[in-house]
């Protein structure tokens, strides 16, 4: 088995430079690569482009990179929970490309799969369609959307093994599997790194072939954005 394990987050981030394009898994704050984001803050890389469904909240997740003005461009579907983000966007400091969520997922998936572009009906007739090729299939209009081209993909899984095989938990799965193997180098952080042979091959969500580096994450905060509960009777 090819061993993908690196000893820590510093080793996992070797080769990261200014002006690169990163993909980051997560939906809201659920399933975000907390250790890798913290390391990007520490490395203080600048002028980066981030492809991520959301942009974190003030002071957590990608909000930490925004605070230090490390991000030049965000490609996201929804950025509603972040005042600093809004300020930078409205002042023009931050370049923002908002795209439909399904298109975002499929542009990751296409990059993973070696499909350069695909047609989708999402966004036809809206400002998302500006400058894009459109075409009719089965009586319905579609837009041509292209696969992403990123330098690093940062994903977070629940469990992983030394071969890079990954298992996700609950809705923390979200964009993480689609981003595996969708950039030149995919780095996975996991809550629990186990020896090869421990995970049942039937239960692996992402095979290790898509992963270049894997490491055991530490001190997960796993913040909840909207705590909603019901009272016990």
């Amino acid at each position: 088995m090819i061993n993908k394990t690196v000893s820590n987050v510093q080793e996992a981030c070797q080769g990261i430079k200014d002006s690169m394009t990163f993909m980051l898994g997560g939906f809201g704050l659920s399933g975000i690569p907390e250790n890798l984001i913290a390391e990007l803050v520490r490395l203080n890389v600048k002028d980066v482009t981030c492809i991520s469904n959301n942009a974190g909240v003030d002071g957590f997740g990608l909000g930490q990179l925004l605070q230090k003005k490390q991000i030049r461009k965000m490609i996201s579907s929804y950025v509603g929970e972040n005042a600093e983000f809004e300020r930078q966007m409205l002042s023009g400091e931050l370049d923002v490309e908002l795209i439909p969520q399904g298109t975002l997922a499929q542009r990751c998936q296409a990059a993973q799969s070696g499909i350069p572009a695909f047609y989708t009906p999402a966004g036809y007739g809206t400002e998302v369609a500006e400058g894009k090729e459109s075409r009719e299939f089965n009586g319905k209009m579609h837009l041509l959307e292209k696969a992403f081209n990123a330098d690093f993909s940062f994903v977070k899984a629940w469990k992983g093994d030394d071969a890079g095989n990954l298992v996700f938990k609950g809705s923390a799965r979200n964009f993480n599997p689609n981003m595996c193997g969708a950039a030149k180098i995919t780095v996975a952080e996991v809550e629990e790194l186990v020896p090869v042979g421990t995970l049942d091959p039937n239960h692996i969500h992402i095979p290790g072939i898509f992963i270049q580096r894997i490491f055991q994450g530490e001190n997960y905060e796993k913040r909840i954005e909207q705590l909603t509960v019901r009272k016990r009777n």
Partner: protein
Amino acid sequence: MALSKEQIAQRIAKEVKDGYYVNLGIGIPTLVANFVQNDIEVDFQSENGVLGMGPFPFEGEEDPDLINAGKQTITTLPGASFFDSAMSFSMIRGQHVNLTILGAMEVSQNGDIANWKIPGKMVKGMGGAMDLVASAENIIVAMMHTNRAGESKLLKNCSLPLTGVNCVKKIVSNLAVLEVINNSFKLIERAPGVSVEEIKTATEGNLIIEGDIPEMKF
């Protein structure tokens, strides 16, 4: 009396049929789950990767790895499943989800919808709304008939940036149930105690009124 948000949700719940897979948007649509009849089987899909969503967790049982598309903590029901975002939108674009219920800032008489952006004011993003409205066979919009200034939100043409074109089939507002047909809003039902005249005044787009318009029943 114009309907409350809960009553709009309650009326929409009558459109949810046995065997449906349903995607609920944020806001009033989320409330629809509370009013679906107990004797039918319905599965709720959340586009962040959950099918078979259950109620909110009991205090202390919340799990940060289990949220809905509004980032609220949730639970799952027996038979639920998790999946990635690409598969989630395969369910949506592939029309495996039977019904989409979402909110709107404006709807036009040809079925265009605007609900994601107010230029210069609110730019949060479209999330999954553009994928949902471009693909769903059956879209119901839950909305207020007029804005706070009393101006109609059911228009000849949307003034805000569009989310999708020619896609809305049915609207349940605080005043009425309407269908979008022949480049017009066709009045189907009135909110209890709301007159046809009031609905006419509150609707800027073409309004088709045929025969007696019944009051909604709950």
